């Protein structure tokens, strides 16, 4: 079942949904981009159809809604840590298939790795439902199809945005009453079936090949090219790492917050322990660590494919024009080489 809404009706629908839900969607912030005269598109609360930016890929990923760049974990004084609990309203998060698939990976780490769930992610996760936005085909940095992340079933209803308004694919019966007054139409959200880019992650069969790959000269290139800025991590749909930091309100106060802040394995110091040398001292070491996590280690642990949805944001953001897609394809070639050297069949 589907519906068609004009602009005015679409705005009315958003207003009605906002009565019960906080709606998060990509929103354009003019002149706030990384370069002069550029805009930034990021996830924010919206209450109207007009606010949603649907023509372009958002600059920053959907993960920021459920896993904010920084969030308060505890308020402390000298005697105690008090858990910071936010009162949350139910959330609807609007995103493309790749965005929604990326949240599965976030969920795997925060709720499904180890013996304890992350309480902060659990609270947000349980309040959130996804709304699928039809993708208009993406950009030349997208490779969602290669990552098997171009389709999803995890949404309560689907939307196709256009300048005329919305087309709606009704899916979850709970939301049907919001649409039923509008014009019916046979509509189903279409998924992207092709990208310009194809990325073929390597199959690394054993530790001998893995450790040879770690020593492969291909990583040296990044010592010179990568400036370890961490922009790729901040833009990444799936990266989850964070550092915990205590912040005090004033110089002499006993009061403060324990905060979680997104961290990047690309920035020097990520692995540094007190009084010890870094484990990965060069940009090449850190690039290797990131790429192998996404395209080998994550799957080796969870057997759920790569830790990447092919959104291409890391490539879009890199000030040094490093394309993750090219790096992965290069790595696959290196693995083939190594396997030949070791007399193994590809």
């Amino acid at each position, binding site marked *: 079942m589907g519906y068609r809404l004009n602009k005015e009706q679409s705005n009315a629908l958003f207003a009605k949904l906002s009565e019960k839900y906080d709606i998060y969607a990509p929103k354009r912030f003019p002149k706030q981009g990384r370069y002069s005269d550029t805009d930034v598109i990021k996830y924010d609360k919206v209450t109207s159809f007009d606010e949603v930016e649907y023509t372009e890929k958002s600059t920053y990923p959907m993960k920021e809604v459920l896993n904010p760049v920084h969030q308060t974990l505890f308020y402390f004084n000298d005697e105690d840590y008090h858990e910071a609990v936010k009162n949350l309203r139910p959330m609807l998060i609007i995103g493309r298939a790749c965005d929604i698939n990326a949240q599965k990976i976030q969920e795997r780490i*925060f709720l499904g790795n180890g013996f304890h769930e992350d*309480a902060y992610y659990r609270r947000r996760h349980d309040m959130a439902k996804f709304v699928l936005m039809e993708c208009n085909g993406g950009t030349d940095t997208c490779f969602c199809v290669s990552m098997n992340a171009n389709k999803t079933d995890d949404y309560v209803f689907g939307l196709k945005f256009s300048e005329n308004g919305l087309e709606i694919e009704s899916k979850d019966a709970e939301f049907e009453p919001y649409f039923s007054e509008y014009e019916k139409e046979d509509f189903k959200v279409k998924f992207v079936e092709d990208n310009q880019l194809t990325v073929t992650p390597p199959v690394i069969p054993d530790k001998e090949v893995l450790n040879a790959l770690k020593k492969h000269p291909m990583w040296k290139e990044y010592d010179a090219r990568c400036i370890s800025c961490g922009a790729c991590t901040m833009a990444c749909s799936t990266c*989850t790492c964070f550092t915990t930091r*205590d912040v005090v309100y004033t110089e002499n106060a006993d009061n*403060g917050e324990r905060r979680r802040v997104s961290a990047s394995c690309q920035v020097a110091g990520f692995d*540094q322990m007190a009084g010890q040398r870094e484990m990965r001292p060069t940009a090449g070491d850190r690039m290797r660590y990131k790429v192998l996590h996404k395209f080998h280690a994550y799957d080796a642990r969870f057997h759920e494919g790569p830790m990447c949805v092919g959104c291409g944001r890391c490539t879009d953001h890199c000030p040094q024009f490093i394309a993750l897609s090219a790096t992965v394809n290069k790595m696959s070639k290196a693995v083939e080489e190594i396997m030949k050297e070791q007399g193994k069949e590809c």
Partner: protein
Amino acid sequence: MIRNELQPAACRILSVKHESVHEWTFRVATDIKVSHGQFMQLSIPRVGEAPISVSMQGDGWLEFTLRPVGKVTNEIFEKKAGEYLFLRGPYGNGWPKHRIDGKHLVVITGGTGLAPVRSLLNHYYDHMDEIKDIHLISGFKNDESIVFTEDLAKWKEKFTTIYALDNDQKEGFRTGMVTAFVSEIPWKDFGEDYTVLVVGPPPMMKFTGLELLKNGVKEENIWMSFERKMSCAIGKCGHCRIDEVYVCLDGPVFMYTVAKDLVD
């Protein structure tokens, strides 16, 4: 109510003992029970949190032996008996006691690496019937960095011990790296019935591992304890990950078959 594993609890410091100039042991009041070789997250409000291994445990207390080498440990060194540390845990797997009981045990440590294995050694000291015998090689940089002096003296009574200083002379201590003494362990008398525990700085563990293999020690009989940066200790923050392994969840103790391939 969702359980929050990250919540630390205030625990009173019972005593502070100076093991050496730079290594002090803090005894903290708590009823938390810990397996030998596990670690806890220690917090100080305003400063932060760090993973620290438990160096000894008793009825109603835990001990932590540390050096002031970072933000958190520097601040802990300012604390006195009666003040508070914040604790959560324990985390990690600890030493595989079921694979040690009833066998010959060889323990090789470098410096403060003795701390995470101290409570296990003291347990066997009190229960020598649980084990065939213990061979302990403990190396320290120099006279100044020797820790647990009383334990070292006590262990001599029941264990076969080799204590060494890297390049310093002292009575009761030999001179040289721990690797130089590995061949003195009577491996031939053990048959298959032994377990080796290694803990110390990364280069010390690496070269000790290689030396053990040279002496015909089986990879499956060697266990090593790792140390990495951590922000959460529950598998979320990502700092301690090496390939598909999380040191906080799958370690800090690893069989050598796994440990040898853990390239950061």
